[in-house]
């Protein structure tokens, strides 16, 4: 529902009043912003000492800082990429076997899904970090992060896959059975390819969640973006400037991804009107 149906189209007087009110609220917001800037300036947050390493290529710390942060960002993307890949594979297996397997197995899967969904992701990451060496798996620290994130996200992806398969019209599987395909064939060559198409927007949104959660790598000292930032802050002493920069990079990447999700969703829904896709409630919308 667009907001405009809530009230009549404004007349000339109402328009004038709205313009005054806009000017006043705009000024109030600007004043608040200016106050923040003023306080920061008084606290000495706009000095060259604090910004130089970040913005001035001539500064002695410029090159090392950007190399450090760049490697951190690569590590973040790497961990996020592996996590979403593994989550996709395991999530699909969970979703498929849950649909087809025996009752006791279904119950076991539901149990695992509930357990993993109810536990904070930071606990899962720390658990992977601490428990893997105990059982004799001595992997590099990135894999602890990837395993923790995968454990958390694979069950969400399983739900997305299930919703994707459910959203397909029944005629698809009926037609496939009618031409003599077996259950596995129907799933692999008819339902899954279409389901993945319908799921694409939800998957991209989930990637945003995974990217944000890689920042929890700092709890296990994985050298990702935020952790590298912290290292730099210890040496340069400019937390506000660096966190501002880190936040900005995250916002740019994630905003682009969410726009991409909206775009693919629009493209897909234009393509096939017949299968009204029921949007699964994604974790991206809950801040998980």
């Amino acid at each position, binding site marked *: 529902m667009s907001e405009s149906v809530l009230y009549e189209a*404004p007349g000339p007087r109402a328009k004038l009043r709205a313009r005054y009110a806009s000017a006043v609220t705009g000024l109030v917001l600007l004043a608040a912003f200016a106050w923040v800037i003023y306080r920061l300036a008084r606290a000495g947050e706009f000095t060259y000492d604090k910004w130089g390493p970040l913005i001035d290529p001539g500064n002695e710390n410029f090159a090392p800082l950007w190399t450090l942060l760049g490697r951190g960002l690569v590590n973040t993307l790497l961990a996020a990429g592996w996590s979403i890949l593994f989550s996709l594979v395991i999530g699909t297996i969970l979703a498929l076997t849950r649909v087809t397997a025996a009752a006791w197995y279904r119950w076991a899967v539901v149990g695992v899904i509930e357990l993993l969904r109810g536990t904070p992701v*930071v606990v899962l990451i720390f658990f992977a970090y601490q428990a893997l060496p105990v059982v004799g798996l001595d992997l590099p620290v990135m894999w602890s992060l990837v395993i923790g994130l995968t454990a958390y996200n694979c069950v969400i992806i399983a739900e997305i896959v299930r919703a994707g398969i459910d959203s397909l019209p029944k005629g698809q599987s009926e037609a496939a059975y009618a031409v003599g395909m077996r259950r596995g064939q129907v799933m692999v060559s008819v339902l899954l390819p279409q389901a993945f198409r319908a799921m694409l927007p939800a998957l991209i949104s989930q990637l945003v969640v995974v990217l944000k959660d890689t920042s929890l790598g700092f709890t296990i000292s994985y050298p990702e973006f935020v952790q590298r930032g912290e290292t730099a802050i210890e040496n340069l002493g400019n937390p506000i400037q660096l966190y501002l920069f880190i936040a900005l990079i995250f916002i740019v990447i994630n905003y682009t991804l969410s726009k991409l999700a909206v775009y693919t969703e629009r493209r897909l829904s234009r393509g096939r009107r017949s299968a009204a896709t029921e949007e699964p409630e994604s974790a991206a919308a809950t801040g998980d």
Partner: protein
Amino acid sequence: MQVLIDNYHLYLRGLGTTLRICLYAGLLTLVVGTFIAGCRVAPLTPLRAFGTAWVTVFRNCPLAVVLFFMAFGIPALGVNASYFVFGTIGLALYTSAFVCEAIRSGINAVSPGQAEAARSVGLGFGQTLRLVILPQAVRSIIPPLGSVMIAMIKNSAIAGAFGIGGDLYAVGIRQSSAQGEAIIPVLVGVALGYLIITIPAGLLLSYVERKVAIAR
């Protein structure tokens, strides 16, 4: 498992602190989130821009970065408070973006015919919203809002990882790193603590969801 039985009072206290953080942050985030949602549907352009910027920033920024910012940025503004206060406020601000979107999408889910009908019988903007739109929107706001709150409870562990201190996660970490207890039983205990909150909350939510569900 002995470590859990011996130290159960520590875990209980940690659970209490976690619940307290969630209660304060939950109340604050509802107020802020509703206000931001109001901004986003307001007829004034600066307020709408402010609401959009707020949601874009807090939805796309990792909670860890928000919390770091609270810890370093707020003191630079000349305000001093404890980690507990910073952590709780940071958690609330981060969650408010999702609360706002849940409320806004709930308002959007009411069919436009409802508002048109209300206007055609002569109701004004305030009356339309208060008497016709919001009562219907509440039903579709509750399920996503509940999911947001459950996610917030889990996210409170991140605030704990920052050293709010005394919450369930922090208790577990202290037990294993400072006192050298075996990590696996300790973490199982911590996970159980969260599950005790999140699973009943999830069940309650799906019950309420069925109750308020309406065929449209």
